[in-house]
């Protein structure tokens, strides 16, 4: 496919890998966090790790909205379906996220709850329009990428005066999560994840632009390179980060200029700010309560806010005791450090959220990187003999 295949070219990957090895200073170590699950997926799926020199380490960040959704929020949706008899609609990757009592939305559906998958927020609105006798709740989730479509359907619902439609809003913001990672006491306490820079979000940045990341570069002296989700994009971003570190720079650079500019999509931003406002605090799986890190629906749209309409009461629920998702999302541990990983916790039967979405650190490692854990040299001490990326 155009604008996809070119950025997966194996020959170019070999050249880039050589360029990275040439630029990385063997006398120092580099640790970069890719915030987005899309980057995590690309790095694992295309074997980018094998193309990097051993002193360049990629740390998987919390950037998958499915992975950071806490149990308590999914419980709200399940309770709505069981106790209030509403029809809950959501994106496919939310359905298998573990909830309380061994449930997930999918298991609740099997027990009779009316929970359905939709491809688009517009499909949820359309069902409510088609069936006015049915109470429809759209369980909205996602970073800044997925928020504008939710804002649009809320506007449309208000314009239509649609009384049987509402949104359970779980939209979260990337910049505040990055700030939490940089300031988190846990990470300081562990002291094992010194970060030299970030690969910045791809599609989130099509909406918010690259400007919000300038703060990190200036305040925390951390370079940020916005990158596309294809393997060559990620490799070029790593090369740009290495170059910034070598030169002692901490700037925001944009590798994904084909879709991202400094200001982002102003039309979408205006729409989002008309419909949503900041929540004072929101619980993230793995990061705990993060101040001003999520959005809620503004008062003029309260009639379409499921939390107001149904008087929902959020209860925080601790994760499974043995699950290490929290430490993995912070970059403190790797998937293989978790004793549930690939034993009781698999993509078919996820115990923690990082195993649910294909963009989660555990699912990506399970599907594409597990063999490396059992390699004699653990796969990281010598440069790769072969390049796994397909030509």
């Amino acid at each position, binding site marked *: 496919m155009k604008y996809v295949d070119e950025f997966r070219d194996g020959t170019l990957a070999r*050249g*880039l890998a050589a360029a990275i*090895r040439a630029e990385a200073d063997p006398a120092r170590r580099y640790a970069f966090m890719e915030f987005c699950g899309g980057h995590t997926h690309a790095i694992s799926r295309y074997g980018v790790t094998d193309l990097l*020199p051993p002193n360049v380490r990629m740390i998987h960040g919390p950037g998958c909205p499915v992975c950071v959704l806490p149990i308590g929020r999914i419980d709200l949706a399940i309770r709505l379906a069981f106790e209030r008899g509403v029809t809950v609609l959501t994106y496919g990757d939310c359905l298998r996220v573990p909830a309380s009592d061994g449930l997930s939305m999918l298991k609740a559906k099997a027990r009779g709850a009316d929970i359905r998958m939709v491809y688009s927020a517009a499909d949820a609105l359309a069902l409510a329009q088609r069936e006015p006798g049915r109470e429809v709740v759209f369980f909205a989730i*996602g*970073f800044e*990428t997925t928020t*504008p*479509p939710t804002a649009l359907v809320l506007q449309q619902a208000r314009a239509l005066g649609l009384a049987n439609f509402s949104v359970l809003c779980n939209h979260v913001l990337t910049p505040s999560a990055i700030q939490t990672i940089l300031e988190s006491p846990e990470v300081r306490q562990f002291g094992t994840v010194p970060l030299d820079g970030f690969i910045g979000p791809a599609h989130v940045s099509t909406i918010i632009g690259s400007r919000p990341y300038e703060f990190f570069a200036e305040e925390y002296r951390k370079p940020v390179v916005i990158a596309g989700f294809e393997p060559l994009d990620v490799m070029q971003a790593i090369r740009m980060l290495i170059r910034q570190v070598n030169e002692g720079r901490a700037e925001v650079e944009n590798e994904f200029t084909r879709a991202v500019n400094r200001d982002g999509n102003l039309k979408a931003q205006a729409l989002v700010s008309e419909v949503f406002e900041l929540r004072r605090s929101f619980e993230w799986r793995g990061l705990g309560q993060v101040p001003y890190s999520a959005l809620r629906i503004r008062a003029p749209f309260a009639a379409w806010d499921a939390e107001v309409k149904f008087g929902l009461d959020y209860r925080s629920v601790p994760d499974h005791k043995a699950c290490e998702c929290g430490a993995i999302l912070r970059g403190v541990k790797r998937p293989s450090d978790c004793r549930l990983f690939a034993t009781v916790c698999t993509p078919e039967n996820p115990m923690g959220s990082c195993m649910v979405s294909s963009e989660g650190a555990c699912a990506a490692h399970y599907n594409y990187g597990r063999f490396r854990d059992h390699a004699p040299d653990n796969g990281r001490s010598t440069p790769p003999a072969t390049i796994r990326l397909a030509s």
Partner: protein
Amino acid sequence: MCLAIPARVVAFAADDQAVVDLGGVRKQVSLALVDGVELGDYVIVHVGYALSRLDPEEAEATLALLREAGALLEPASGEAPA
């Protein structure tokens, strides 16, 4: 979750809708979030909505940079330098 795909706009429809082509598959998406899209433009599509236009010149410039990175090291034929 935030994955999105570049798709070519092949027809416009009512209510800010358009038909896009994704490597041979056709699908209706909303253009409500992006202004000034023209027929034949590539847009980045996520959950049924176009999020931004894709700039072909910038895409080519990035590819040229990637080619250049490898070309600089061509004599080493992709092997790690000592």
